[in-house]
């Protein structure tokens, strides 16, 4: 047990050090949602009218609506970034170092997942602080309640990245992940527009958005930021996370994973 925690700590520290060193990655991770918030949301503010739906108890501006979605976006991008770094690790060989540790392989993968979630959550809070300075803030307790929601969402999206990384054999294939995973997941969700608004243009699109686990993660965060609890969103996020973790463990099973990657 002590050995398992020692490894967890070391893996989290390694990821944190790598992240801090890659300053451009940190800046990009912060600038991306801020551009959406400051530019995109300002433009849409006039175009989109938002009615009062839970968890909101009054009319809100579009900027306020979009913040939980942008928190989700950070988790999503970071989950994929960490998947990218796993593929990189595998090409560079440090994945071998990790996988030949005498600890159970599932635990080593969970450590990687938790490490990437820690990084994601820290990024989200940095973004929330900047957003608050910009004038978009939430009830104080909301920041606290959001923590477990961010962790659950971060683990789910990190597990998706982990599962994908076991299928991506080369770094070059990563662009495909951007096009076929990140963008559809982000745009076909409640991050940018409420589902009822989506239904006005297409019921099918609304249904697709509702089935997207990223929508659940965003809603979980949105409710939590107001101190409210969204049980269905939590349930679906946890379920999706469990499925993705299962797929990741299957993908990295020594009896099948990395099998075709000769060398």
């Amino acid at each position, binding site marked *: 047990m002590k050995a398992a925690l020692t490894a967890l700590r070391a893996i989290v520290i390694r990821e944190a*050090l790598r992240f801090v060193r890659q300053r451009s990655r940190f800046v990009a991770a912060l600038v991306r949602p801020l551009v959406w918030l400051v530019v995109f949301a300002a433009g849409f503010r006039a175009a989109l009218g938002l009615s009062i739906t839970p968890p909101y108890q009054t009319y809100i501006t579009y900027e306020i609506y979009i913040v939980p979605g942008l928190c989700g976006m950070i988790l999503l991008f970071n989950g994929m970034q960490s998947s990218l770094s796993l593929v990189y690790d595998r090409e560079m060989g440090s994945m071998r170092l990790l996988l030949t*540790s005498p600890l159970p392989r599932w635990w*080593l993968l969970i450590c990687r997942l938790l490490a990437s979630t820690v990084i994601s959550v820290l990024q989200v809070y940095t973004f929330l602080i900047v957003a608050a300075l910009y004038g978009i803030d939430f009830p104080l307790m909301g920041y606290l309640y959001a923590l477990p929601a961010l962790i659950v969402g971060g683990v789910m999206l990190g597990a998706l990245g982990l599962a994908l990384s076991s299928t991506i054999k080369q770094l070059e294939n990563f662009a495909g992940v951007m096009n076929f995973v990140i963008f559809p997941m982000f745009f076909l969700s409640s991050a940018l527009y409420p589902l009822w608004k989506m239904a006005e243009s297409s019921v099918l699109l609304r249904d697709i958005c509702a089935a997207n686990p990223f929508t659940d993660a965003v809603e979980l965060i949105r409710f939590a930021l107001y101190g409210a609890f969204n049980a269905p969103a939590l349930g679906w996020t946890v379920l999706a996370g469990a499925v993705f973790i299962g797929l990741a463990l299957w993908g990295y099973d*020594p009896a099948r994973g990395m099998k075709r990657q000769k060398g």
Partner: protein
Amino acid sequence: MTGLYVQNLSYAYGAKQALRDVTFGVEPGQFCALLGPNGAGKSTLFSLLTRLFTTSQGRIEVAGYDMSRHPRAALARMGVVFQQPTLDLDLTVQRNLSYFAALHGLSGRDAEARISAALERLNMAERAGERARDLNGGHRRRLEIARCLIHDPAVLLLDEPTVGLDAAARRAITDHVHDLSREDGLTVLWATHLTDEISDRDQVVILHQGEVLKDAPCYEVTQGAPLQDVFLSLTGAPA
């Protein structure tokens, strides 16, 4: 038994048979050179020995532990230097080593003491605070060897560890690992292309097209002839 034993090991990538009924054993304290041309199956064998892959055909025993039944105990007794460098170049030497120690469940003073001892042994103590990126190729390899000794393994696996090094660094590393087997009793499996890294008393396993062609002490294999020539005539390929 504390050595390394491989029995009837086979592995296929789909229809392509990479290893066929491979059997050999390395006794404790023995330096065994695994020699084979490209595509002979050396890398596949290393992947199976380090459990990156598993196979149901055949048996691997490391320091008395069966790899399929007790994989964690077997891995805990094994030190590995991979062909690809596996250092975090932006971390210091010390951090690289403590990360590895933690992956083996070692932390605190115990880890510190082992790290200093490992660095001392390879004359790298004064480099503990340097970034791995600032080390030359030879020192990076030495660091990886120091790292694989931190958890006191009984069996060392090294996959072409001298690739890309100059002659002096190659000689230093080859000599050092020979010493580890002779003086510390470690079982060493050293995959290589380069016959000059093998001494007369070493055991030689020649792998060709997934099969073991020879498994004997070097002097028996060569009978006085240069190993390079013997290897060429056996495999029809340069080492």
